[in-house]
């Protein structure tokens, strides 16, 4: 719907999109800024030129008009001075003649003569003459100046009525003296239409030239910026690919310019990065080889020792008591050594980064049930009761069942060992993003300092405590690695006297982030079970 035509939404988003384009395109930004700045510069220059030209045109036209008018007036005055008329009609004719000659000499059709008011010579003076066009444009101020100004010239810019419109013009006024008739004001109008046309033409030309210049500069900038931006773009793309792990990628080195220098130093950097990473990879491979070799070299003699120990152990009844006990010790210590070796190898595999997740759909509740069944006998020997409470989690989640089983077994084993013979509760639940399992014991618990160390290798809560289950000290460290491998969490809460609670949270989809664990930590019954204990509950979280 609305795929072909811009919808209202499209328009609403247009500013956002434009802003994004502005932020993301260096080229667009450069061209736009260049256009803006050159536009302003051209506009200022154009306006200045236009004003200066118009001023100049006007001034020269004005000077010409003033000269012209002055000459005409002088000629007219001298004609008048030479005449000798005193009758009304003769005066009128004289004025006409003079005005016609003025008209002829100034090439202006617009001539007017008004008698200066307030003169009384007694003789019937010739009346005012002038075209109606002139009558309407001459302002009283100009007339007043001319009336009082003697032989001086005065001028005024006017709008001359033309066919349906007005033309710009100048009216120049001066005084004429008709002997025996008195003073007259002579006005000559000059039409500036031509100059105006010239000015308009110049302005149009300037405007067009300006626009063309802006477009040209825009295009040139676009091309130049392309030249400059393209290598930058190549460099950006190359470094992106390098960052993404494509170590062999390089920028082509061309020429001797600054980009060639950039390319050379970038490629140098990439070379050293590649060699370092290769070196590290080789080291990591060596480490893995070493682990694998140690594994084989240590395990083969250990197998022989173990077989021998077991054969001796099976025959211990026939031995003297001291030898029989020795056989027992040998047997248990070989087993312990075996576990320690396995755990050490497992943790070094994690350190070498050679661990791969072998995920398959697994039901965490079923897995927990299996682990509980397996460890029930051990729990009963220690006087603890194992309870599994699963309000949720009855579906398959991709996980490596061998690893998760190991984690759960380890957590339950720890809870039995530190549970002081009190019940151990295992809870499984799920939410939309994760499944979780908690193992809660009501044993002696740990101080906050100790809680912060539980995932450390070979760390023990209380070194003086007896090791009933013979853990290796690596169990929780491996469990944390196992949880991390699944992009999951392994966290702990503990309070002295109130017991501990370990929580394993796994994402429902491998690699997807867990938003929240389905089970609370600290547990809801934190601190409530052991009234004699320190009421202050302390929690520490070790995020995986």
């Amino acid at each position, binding site marked *: 719907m609305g795929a072909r035509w811009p919808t209202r939404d499209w328009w609403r988003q247009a500013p956002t999109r434009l802003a994004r384009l502005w932020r993301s395109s260096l080229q667009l930004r450069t061209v736009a800024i260049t256009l803006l700045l050159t536009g302003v510069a051209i506009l200022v220059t154009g306006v200045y030129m236009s004003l200066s030209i118009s001023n100049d045109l006007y001034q020269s036209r004005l000077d010409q008009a003033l000269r012209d008018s002055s000459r005409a007036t002088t000629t007219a005055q001298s004609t008048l001075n030479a005449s000798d008329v005193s009758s009304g009609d003769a005066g009128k004719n004289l004025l006409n003649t003079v005005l016609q000659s003025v008209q002829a000499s100034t090439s202006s059709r617009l001539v007017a003569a008004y008698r200066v008011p307030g003169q009384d010579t007694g003789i019937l003076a010739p009346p005012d003459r002038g075209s109606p066009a002139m009558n309407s444009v001459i302002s009283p101020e100009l007339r007043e100046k001319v009336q009082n100004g003697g032989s001086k010239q005065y001028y005024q810019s006017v709008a001359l009525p033309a066919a349906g419109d007005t033309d710009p013009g100048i009216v120049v006024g001066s005084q004429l003296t008709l002997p025996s008739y008195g003073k007259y004001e002579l006005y000559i109008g000059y039409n500036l239409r031509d100059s105006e046309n010239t000015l308009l033409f110049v302005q149009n030309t300037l405007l067009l030239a300006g626009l063309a210049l802006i477009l040209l500069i825009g295009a040139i900038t676009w091309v130049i910026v392309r030249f400059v931006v393209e290598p930058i773009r190549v460099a950006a793309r190359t470094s992106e690919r390098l960052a993404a792990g494509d170590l062999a990628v390089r920028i082509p080195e061309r020429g001797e310019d600054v980009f060639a220098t950039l390319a050379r130093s970038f490629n140098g950097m990439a070379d050293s990065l590649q060699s370092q990473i290769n070196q590290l990879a080789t080291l990591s491979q060596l480490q893995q080889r070493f682990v694998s070799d140690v594994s084989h070299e240590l395990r*083969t003699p250990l*197998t*022989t020792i173990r*077989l*021998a120990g077991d054969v001796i152990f099976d025959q211990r009844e026939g031995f003297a008591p001291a030898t029989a006990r020795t056989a027992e010790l040998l047997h248990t210590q070989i087993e312990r050594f075996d576990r320690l070796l396995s755990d050490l190898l497992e943790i070094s*595999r994690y350190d070498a980064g050679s661990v791969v997740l072998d995920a398959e759909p697994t039901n965490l509740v079923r897995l927990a049930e299996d682990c509980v069944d397996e460890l029930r006998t051990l729990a009963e020997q220690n006087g603890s009761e194992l309870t599994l409470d699963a309000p949720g989690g009855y579906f398959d989640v991709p996980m490596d069942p*061998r690893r998760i089983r190991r984690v759960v077994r380890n957590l339950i084993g720890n809870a039995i060992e530190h549970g002081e013979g009190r019940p151990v509760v295992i809870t499984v639940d799920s939410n939309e993003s994760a499944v979780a399992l908690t193992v809660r014991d009501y044993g002696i618990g740990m101080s906050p300092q100790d809680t912060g160390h539980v995932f450390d290798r070979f760390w023990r809560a209380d070194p003086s405590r007896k090791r009933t289950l013979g853990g290796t000290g690596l169990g929780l460290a491996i469990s944390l690695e196992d949880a991390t491998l699944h992009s999951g969490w392994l966290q702990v809460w503990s309070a002295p006297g109130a017991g501990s609670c370990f929580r394993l949270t796994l994402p429902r989809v491998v690699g997807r982030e867990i938003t929240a664990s389905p089970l609370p930590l600290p547990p809801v019954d934190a601190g409530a079970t052991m009234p004699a204990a320190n009421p202050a509950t302390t929690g520490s979280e070790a995020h995986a």
Partner: protein
Amino acid sequence: MTSRILVVDDDTALAEMIGIVLRTEGFDPVFCEDGSLAVDTFRSSKPDLVLLDLMLPGLDGIEVCGRIRAESGTPIIMLTAKSDTADVVKGLESGADDYMVKPFNPKELVARIRTRLRPAPATPPTDELTVGDLVVDVAGHEVRRGDTRIALTPLEFDLLLALASKPQQVFTREMLLEQVWGYHYKADTRLVNVHVQRLRAKVEQDPDNPKIVMTVRGVGYRAGAAA
């Protein structure tokens, strides 16, 4: 009759110790220290079962396993110092029936050997079963498609038989591990996956589109319907 067991391991101390354990349990051990001699020793001694170390001088254990498997269905148990996924899967794919990670204890070793030497614990009521277009001759330990006999190792035969004897049932990997391999605790389900692949390669006309051993997603396997 005492079963003869060929122990291929370059570590003489371990080989001797295994020999002691096996003799105590009434087996007749034969030894070979070099991978390149293993196949010859196998031919000359005709053992009932082979214990094969994965890391051998001369010829690699995986290679030895492949060569023995090429001429015989004799059960092979790999002894491996590595529990890494890749190595175990490689060994199983080359034809080993089972594997044991060092260090193992004698009881475990003997139990596994016994399971492999005494196959087919569940005897079906009939002498002949059909799966898809195959006929399984239980008494004759033979599988035929029409008149063509398909050579299966004892383990593969047991696996097919287990599925075919209860065609209506879906077997989980754990069930098959218990019934065919004799594991009574959670073991490595990759054993099942690899051997189902090997079995399919032999009995299916199109292994990518199996008709004999069907996968039931998220559960396990079942036998295909009789054609």
